[in-house]
């Protein structure tokens, strides 16, 4: 199983039962996860993202070599962000980056974002965009962060022909027509961590096709068991299940 939505380090607003890397790795391995695409909670509020990315790469090697694959962040609002992208690729050997436009204060149609997406596409880097971290109703009163509006991503994907995007936690405020348009580009994938409703994965497969759907847990903020049980809740054919749990992510990783 490949989990495309995992975080290391400390969630800023409370301790989490599995926020120690050893414990998280043990939990992932016990669940049958063989590869986890991993960002850092520190990227949300830290402005020294180069330092965060370095720690992320180091901790992935130290605690989860062969399991944890680091996805550093790039914040195009910060000065000299292209060097962060370069370091992700050249220094840390990352295969992708994870963006947090809402915590970093830009929209997906911002020209700086467009420049970043173009650069990532040129370097064949996967781009993950986290649409939300937690329910807007439960956010800390001093840190209320709106969810990412994914609508402009349709145009970005049309503009940048080599761009491949994984939209993480994209369903809390998703507009059905936007999800449809993103899926229609054939270069956008969706993880199941925030997909709600009974048999929600089955509904998602009907909407976007099973080849667009990835297993993502949003652990350790969300319980890993949630994503696991969602696969049981929906009646999926063997081929669909294999693709969602692993095959689609493997294709993206190539």
């Amino acid at each position, binding site marked *: 199983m490949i989990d495309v939505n995992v975080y290391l380090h400390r969630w800023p607003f409370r301790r989490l*039962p599995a926020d120690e890397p050893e414990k998280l790795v043990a939990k992932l391995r016990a669940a049958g996860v063989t590869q986890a695409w991993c960002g850092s909670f520190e990227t949300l509020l830290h402005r020294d993202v180069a330092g965060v990315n370095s720690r992320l790469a180091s901790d992935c090697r130290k605690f989860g070599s062969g399991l944890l694959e680091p996805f550093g962040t790039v914040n195009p609002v910060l000065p000299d962000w292209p060097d962060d992208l370069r370091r992700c690729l050249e220094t840390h050997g990352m295969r992708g980056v994870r963006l947090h436009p809402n915590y970093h204060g830009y929209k997906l149609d911002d020209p700086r974002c467009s420049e970043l997406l173009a650069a990532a596409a040129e370097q064949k880097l996967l781009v993950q965009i986290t649409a939300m971290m937690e329910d807007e*109703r439960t956010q800390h009163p001093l840190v209320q962060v709106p969810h990412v509006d994914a609508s402009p991503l349709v145009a970005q994907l049309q503009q940048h022909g080599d761009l491949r995007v994984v939209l993480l936690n994209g369903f809390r405020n998703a507009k059905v027509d936007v999800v449809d348009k993103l899926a229609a580009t054939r270069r956008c994938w969706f993880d199941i961590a925030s997909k709600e409703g*009974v*048999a929600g994965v089955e509904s998602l497969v009907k909407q976007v096709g099973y080849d667009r759907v990835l297993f993502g847990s949003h652990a350790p903020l*969300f319980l890993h*068991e*949630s994503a696991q049980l*969602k696969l049981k*809740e929906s009646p999926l054919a063997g081929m669909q299940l294999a693709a969602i749990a692993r095959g689609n992510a493997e294709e993206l990783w190539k």
Partner: protein
Amino acid sequence: MIWDLHCHLTGVPGRTPTERMGQLIEIADRLGIERLCFYMGMGFLKEPTPEELVEQNDQVLEALAHYHDRAFGFCYVSGDHVEVSLAEIERCVARGPMVGIKLWVAHRCNDPVIDPIILRAAELKAVIYQHTWLKTDGTMFAGESTPMDVVELAKRHPRTPLILGHTGGQWELGIRAVRPYANVSIDIAGSDPTAGLVEMAVRELGAERVIYGSDSGGRSFASQIAKVAGAEISEREKRLIYKENLKRMLTPICKAKGIAI
């Protein structure tokens, strides 16, 4: 096995309550859910008129008709319409098959105007469920109760078991608010599968005051079961949360009605 405190006839396809119930039971079976409690009808009505309250309860009664062995019904009542609510309790609970009441967002529960509803439900040993959601984004409804409102209710009715819906939404606050009031249990339904909720609840309240619910069909059964399945608590505590606490609360009224559980 699992008993689910919190289900609705929404979020699944189906032209009738019976069709929707069938869908939900089929999905619940995949996850080992044995019994489900249903509130309200085919749609969400935040401020139902008296006629709409009756209609919503009729829809639940219809859904229960073929599934008495799997489902329980809670009577939808409102502080905006106390007399009608009392009449609905007589029709649906005292003389009908329902075993609890549900108060939603029409009227805050700190208002003593709802006391006759609480008193009658308590006389019947009906389970009393009060929705609460404390929201930081300013989207609370005018009549939406907070955990602190439930505390006021609990103080007025200290011997009556009450359930704090959604653990107050912001569960760290909800748990703290009701911690001193032993007559208040919490429903863990209808929020993201956030790690740590159940552990804090068990630590602060004891497992005996924590009840599993899903808020399906809008929520996934899976994401809500995960809160218990993945919690770092004992197997005994999980059994209490999954089933035994709700069964204990339902036993007096089921016994009085001759419902085998």
